[in-house]
């Protein structure tokens, strides 16, 4: 049954973000603040970089503020000026991505001023931005979120997010459903999903962790993954993508949100996260780790699968 989700805290959050952004911009703490601003369509938002305190009141936070702004701070987005310290508006999931990037030496904590958002959840992908947030329209990632209050930020508005609705965890149940299938059934499932892929690489471009200056798939000597958007190349691309994110993915689900063809990409990422938790007791969190689970090892690692 559909139940509304209380997003009333977002008014206070918006006010707090504006005040804080204006303060840190005018006192020179930061040179710019990356946040969200309202866009033309009713209720919609889009990323914005504010560098003038006078424009701080353009910043908003609503359930339509879906983007993970961490992507704008990575090497892949060289065009964003990085002169000096930058303020960023982050939800819990976005913060985990930033923490991951710090762990991979892509960002320095000191170069960032983190404005944390107490989050009640955001809208799912392809939902009309003006839609009210409820248990049907909420992004599936929010149902599995355990960190609605970001930890370790420079500033977090003093409001308490409402408790998460007790709902079925869609990824967990979908993973369980797929795991119960035979390999042939799973193959058929993914084949159908990937048949929609058009190789627009939106999943790669929005991913904070896809910061390689040249993606393996854009290199052609040798051509490891076919560039054509055909079933074979699509399957290969998605396997490669999931593997390259294993142990790094912070679960922001941007890949799935960005996919114009609704391919449940985060399902692959969640599955890998689940396996890495079981295998190496690793979970992405708010603490900067020196090494991800696949960049390190212990001598006692499981090798029951090796003869």
């Amino acid at each position: 049954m559909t139940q509304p989700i209380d997003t009333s805290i977002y008014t206070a959050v918006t006010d707090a973000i504006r005040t804080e952004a204006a303060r840190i911009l005018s006192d020179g703490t930061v040179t710019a603040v990356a946040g969200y601003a309202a866009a033309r369509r009713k209720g919609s938002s889009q990323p914005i970089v504010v560098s003038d305190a006078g424009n701080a009141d353009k910043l908003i936070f609503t359930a339509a503020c879906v983007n993970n702004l961490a992507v704008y701070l990575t090497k892949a987005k060289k065009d964003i000026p990085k002169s000096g310290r930058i303020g960023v508006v982050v939800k819990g999931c976005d913060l985990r991505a930033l923490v991951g990037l710090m762990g991979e030496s892509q960002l320095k904590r000191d170069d960032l001023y983190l404005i944390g958002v107490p989050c009640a959840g955001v809208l799912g992908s392809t939902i009309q931005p003006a839609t009210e947030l409820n248990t049907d329209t909420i992004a599936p990632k929010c149902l599995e979120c355990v960190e609605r209050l970001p930890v370790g930020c420079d500033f977090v508005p003093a409001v308490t997010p409402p408790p998460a609705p007790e709902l079925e965890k869609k990824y967990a149940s979908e993973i369980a459903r797929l795991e119960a299938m035979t390999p042939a059934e799973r193959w058929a499932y993914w084949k159908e999903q990937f048949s929609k892929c058009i190789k627009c690489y939106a999943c790669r471009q929005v991913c904070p962790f896809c910061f390689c200056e040249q993606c393996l798939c854009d290199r052609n000597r040798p051509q490891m993954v076919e560039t054509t958007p055909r079933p074979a190349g699509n399957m290969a691309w998605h396997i490669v993508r999931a593997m390259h994110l294993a142990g790094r993915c912070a679960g922001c689900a941007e890949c799935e949100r960005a996919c114009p063809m609704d391919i449940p990409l985060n399902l692959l990422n969640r599955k890998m996260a689940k396996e890495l938790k079981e295998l190496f007791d690793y979970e992405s969190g708010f603490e900067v780790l020196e090494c991800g689970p696949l960049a390190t090892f212990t001598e006692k690692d499981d090798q029951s699968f090796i003869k």
Partner: protein
Amino acid sequence: MQKYLSQENFSTLLEKLIASGKRVVAPKLNAGTVLYEPLKNPAEIVIDRMPRRSGKEAFFPICEEIISYGKEGQKVTVTDIDPARFPETVLVGVRPCDAAAIPMLDAVFSWDYRDEFFLERRKKTTVVGMACTEADDACFCTAVGLSPGDPKGGDILLTQVEGGGYLCRAQSEKGEALVAAHAALFSEPDGHKSLPLAEPQTEKIDLQKVKKWLDTNFEHPDWDSIATRCVGCGACAFVCPACHCFDIVDEGTEKSGTRRKNWDACGFWKFTHHASGHNPRDLQPKRYRNRIMHKFKYYDDKFGQRLCTGCGRCIRLCPAGIDIAAIVEDISKK
């Protein structure tokens, strides 16, 4: 010549077309997403939701073979594709914004050199459009001079009527031939009232003014602010009914394989990247500028019209929330 086609007869028509061996492409569900795809039976058609990708796929496949080659010893053979093998197609349920894009593509693929891959498929396809009864706030066909009932680019236009069924207007020889071949299914339109058409909320944009600004403002600081949020994926171009850029790649080994033409997008850094390392559009704002310029200036310079039908797909699906309608509207007010 307007005719009435009942809902039941519409299904029968689709059934007959499928049975005749034609490829009947229409919006249908594929793994939860509405896409133009070949129907296996008439019940699969979904008309109340806008397909995610445009109808251009029927003539401009996402990926198609253009030659195949084989090598034995020192002897290389290259095999052409026989255009007779392009399937006879009826594209049904095409939104007016998708249909209007077809003549735009015709112009590109037929000026000077004629691309028979596109043109032959086009020749073999009958386009049955369907007027829109619903629009969301991303739709902006009216802003670029089209409308939810615009017949441009289609061979037949269907309009839903009250109480079910369609008013059918054939507007080309191909369309008339299709109606004539199944004349028994159609009846006189008397008394059938069409459903009110959708009313997109956007105001008309002065495209002449947009063009004028673009003519003189290739270098302008606003390009940076317009495009900083672009993440450089190809989603907008791939879902666009009018975008037509493509790549040509070889797939296979030196011994045998195919050369393929597949969709490409000006948002990719690789699009213009020279092997030497030089890239004329080295930053994302330059690439996004090309997108706007191509749609509202370059194409206009060459073919006298705009390369945008206001379908709104790129707005709905942009991962960074870029709104082309807002951008163009802003430009028109500069």
